[in-house]
């Protein structure tokens, strides 16, 4: 019964495809990742184009972390320890993550955090 609380729930929608209206924000662009290129270079094109949004998202996570630990120690911990973890990650993931950090200019520890977030989130 807790899942039938209109207007937060609704009857089964129809005719929503092709996507349109207020629940459709937009289509998604296509990019190629060339697995024949070196792992550290594979994501350059994607990251170059999405850099600003990636920096904004990482900043939002930083703000959240600082809300919990205002001293900034949590971010410091991420920036000091997770680069070390980057070296323990299997290939080609380790090199790809380092390549993304280099192209985006985001600290390596924070790119590592984004990539292992599923495991971290359980905390």
């Amino acid at each position, binding site marked *: 019964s807790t899942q039938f609380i209109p207007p937060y729930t609704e009857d*089964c929608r129809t005719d929503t495809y092709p996507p349109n209206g207020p629940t459709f924000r937009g289509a998604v662009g296509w990019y190629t990742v060339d697995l024949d290129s070196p792992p550290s270079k594979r994501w350059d094109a994607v990251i170059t184009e999405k850099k600003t949004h990636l920096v904004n998202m990482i900043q939002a996570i930083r703000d959240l972390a600082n809300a919990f630990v205002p001293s900034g120690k949590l971010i410091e911990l991420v920036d000091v320890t997770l680069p070390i973890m980057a070296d323990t990650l299997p290939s080609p993931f380790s090199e790809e993550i380092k390549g993304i950090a280099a192209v985006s200019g985001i600290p390596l520890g924070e790119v590592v955090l984004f990539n292992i977030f599923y495991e971290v989130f359980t905390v």
Partner: protein
Amino acid sequence: CTSIVAEDHKGNLIHGRNLDFGLFMGWDVKNKSWIISEKLKPLVVNLDFRRNNQTVFKSTNFAGYVGMLTGIKPHTFTLTMNERFSLDGGYIGIMEWVLGKRDGMWMSFLTRSVLEDANSYEEAKTRLAQTKLLAPAYFILGGNQTGQGCIITRSRLLNIDLLEIDVKLGRWYVLETNYDHWEEPLFLDDRRTPAMKCMNQTAQKNISVNTMYDVLSTKPVLNKLTTYTTLMQVSEGKLESYIRDCPNPCMPW
């Protein structure tokens, strides 16, 4: 998250998913939305992974994330993963990793390796079921033949359950949110019942990409955490995805 694999009455398999993320990670009071979910939406990209100038697999991803949460190996299989909550969770796996016990795989690195290297539904199923993980998960896998659709419920070390499509038993689809299918979902987060109600109302004779999108657009299957919807048709090798919004009134999760 909500992932569905359905078989239509001609035996075609359709795989759809909503990717929900950002719960309790900051609420934007002014815009009535989750901060991280909104920051992730502009990062959604479709990726064509190629080797020797040939497509190996395609995926919907967040730029900067090298693992895979949603993908298709054209004409072979489709794969999505949903989060599974467990006390024996990822933080234990991370601690073991830090302490040097590294025989488990990071979840999204496993899905990426399966999409890259597995050459059949059965091989993908075996690897997803049997590879040690750092964190529990649900893997939702679709194949390219009738009956090939399953939910693999994983703990960190074990394959706990495998639920597969069985049209003879009337199970023409499998559907997973974030709770073990043999248990009731958390009463405050039951997206499964509304989703199954809409799938049953659609019925096998009417299931298609269009009607799968309808199901994934129905509140609360669509909610404030939903960043994108992806639809995949293995026989055509097609993946399409759409960034979503859920205007008020809408369930926060």
